[in-house]
């Protein structure tokens, strides 16, 4: 319930309208819940991504949409263009305003089929809806072909596995424990340390009828954390250490090879 209330605050005006619907769905079936496990993803030296299990309960008649994302932020990217009409070069900078750092969607069915356009836009579900909420500016003030560059942006992010839409991936069970759902998400190692929000939407007749939210954190621990801290806070020492290790390693191996008779 606490998580539901948090969600409410974020959507201000929408909240009032939703309250009625939540009360409705809660009274007719069961409350929507979402839990993510683990709550903390630890980046150790051998980290190569993680498995996130998100599970909970929902009404049997509702479809589900699960969104993992960050708060929208502004990102500057270099763009390629033809320089002097001849060669391809990075010759401009585009600022993408209001894009999430990660955008992973999982659903029980096709988004277009279960939600109407207004709802897709309101909750920024699907790349088309997300694209409409994002503005792209050229730093030199040149006009921007929004659709072309947003498409390029999505392709880059999908290549890095930090954006993705997977429809029909949430599995559900109807049994003694009520109506439950579960999904295992492959969390990409490319996603940076930080806090990620998990939003679960219950959908019925084209509309969002209930929401639940939770979050999890990705952070560096142990050596990985200590090293990145040192690189930032004691950067000079860090640089000197890196050089000393390199020189010593180089000389040591040189000496070993000499002993081994590699040189005459």
């Amino acid at each position, binding site marked *: 319930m606490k998580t539901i209330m948090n969600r409410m605050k974020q959507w201000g005006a929408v909240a009032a309208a939703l309250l009625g619907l939540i009360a409705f769905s809660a009274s007719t079936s069961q409350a929507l819940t979402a839990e993510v496990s683990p709550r903390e993803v630890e980046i150790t030296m051998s980290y190569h991504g993680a498995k996130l299990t998100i599970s909970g309960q929902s009404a049997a008649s509702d479809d589900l949409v699960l969104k993992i994302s960050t708060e929208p932020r502004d990102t500057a990217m*270099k763009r390629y263009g033809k320089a002097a009409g001849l*060669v391809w070069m990075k010759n401009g900078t585009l600022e993408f305003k209001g894009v999430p750092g990660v955008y992973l969607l999982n659903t029980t069915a096709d988004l277009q089929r279960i939600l109407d356009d207004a709802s897709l836009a309101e909750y920024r579900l699907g790349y088309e809806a997300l694209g409409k909420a994002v503005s792209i500016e050229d730093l030199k003030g040149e006009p921007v072909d929004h659709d072309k*560059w947003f498409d390029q942006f999505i392709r880059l992010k999908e290549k890095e596995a930090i954006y993705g839409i997977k429809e029909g991936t949430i599995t559900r069970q109807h049994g003694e424990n009520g109506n439950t759902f579960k999904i295992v998400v492959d969390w990409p190692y490319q996603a940076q340390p930080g806090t990620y929000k998990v939003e679960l939407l219950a959908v019925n007749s084209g509309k969002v009828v209930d929401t639940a939210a939770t979050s999890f954190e990705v952070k560096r621990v142990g050596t990985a954390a200590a090293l990145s801290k040192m690189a930032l806070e004691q950067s000079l020492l860090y640089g000197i250490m890196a050089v000393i290790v*390199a020189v010593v390693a180089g000389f040591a191996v040189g000496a070993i090879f000499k002993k081994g008779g590699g040189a005459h």
Partner: protein
Amino acid sequence: MYMYLPIALTSVNYLVVVGLGLAVGLLSGLFGVGGGFLMTPLLMMIGIPPTIAAATDANQIVAASASGCFSHWRLGNVDAKMGILLTLGGFAGGAVGVQIIKILRAAGGADFLIKMTYVLMLGGVGSFMFFESLAALKKNKQAPAAKAAAAAPAKKGGFLSSLPLQTHFEKSGITQSAIVPLVLGVFVGVLAAIMGVGGGFIMVPVMIYLLRMPMHVVVGTGLFQVLFTCIEVTILQAHQNHTVDFFLALLLLIGSVFGAQIGTALGKKLHGDQLKILLAMIVLAVTVKIVLELVLEPSLLLAYAGGH
């Protein structure tokens, strides 16, 4: 199999990275170049952000060149006097080059100019070395002794010998004004800073053709100069930009220090002209790759900022 890089913020297969280090280290030991012009794009291909690829590569080159330099020193192939003069010139030139690039950037259109200079420079140096060493190899087959004798004596007389500070460079077997390597060092430093590379592939031909040093001393002295340049670059990058990933450097250098040894041992078995023609072919291959990148439309038209 995988290791997470806490600065680059990505995970890599460590066998691949050690393998890259080994391959590029081998080139260092063979030719006396840092190999940054090969390593940085390779690192970007495995998902390392461009700024971190370039800075961490400098750290790796410190290890490879220390390893190669150590062995070449024992073989008597390092002209320290020459190396120090070239390095000092290179530092000064690097500082000038950074300023020039700031002015060019402010004026606009600089990147196009830089890219073109890079391609022409690589292509020019590569072609010249290729044809020169090809001709030398042909001649060599007929009269190996005559070639060795002809290459050794430095040009006497003229403007260069009238300069002050005439110094005998024992290891290289040449007498030259100390001003000449200093000025050439500045020249290479400026170019390297503008192109965003270490400059080994320009320094080596400069030593061969302008200073007329013997090929094996060129390799040892090249490594000496690269070692000091990359120590400076690593510390500066770590301190000012926080772009050195120590774990990545460690993986690379595990490969490169051994690669440099293998390269040095292999180099002993090869004739100077054979080394030159091999280096020329690599430089030309890199040129072709860059030209193709410039001409063909990239599959993705967006990229993260940084790199060259």
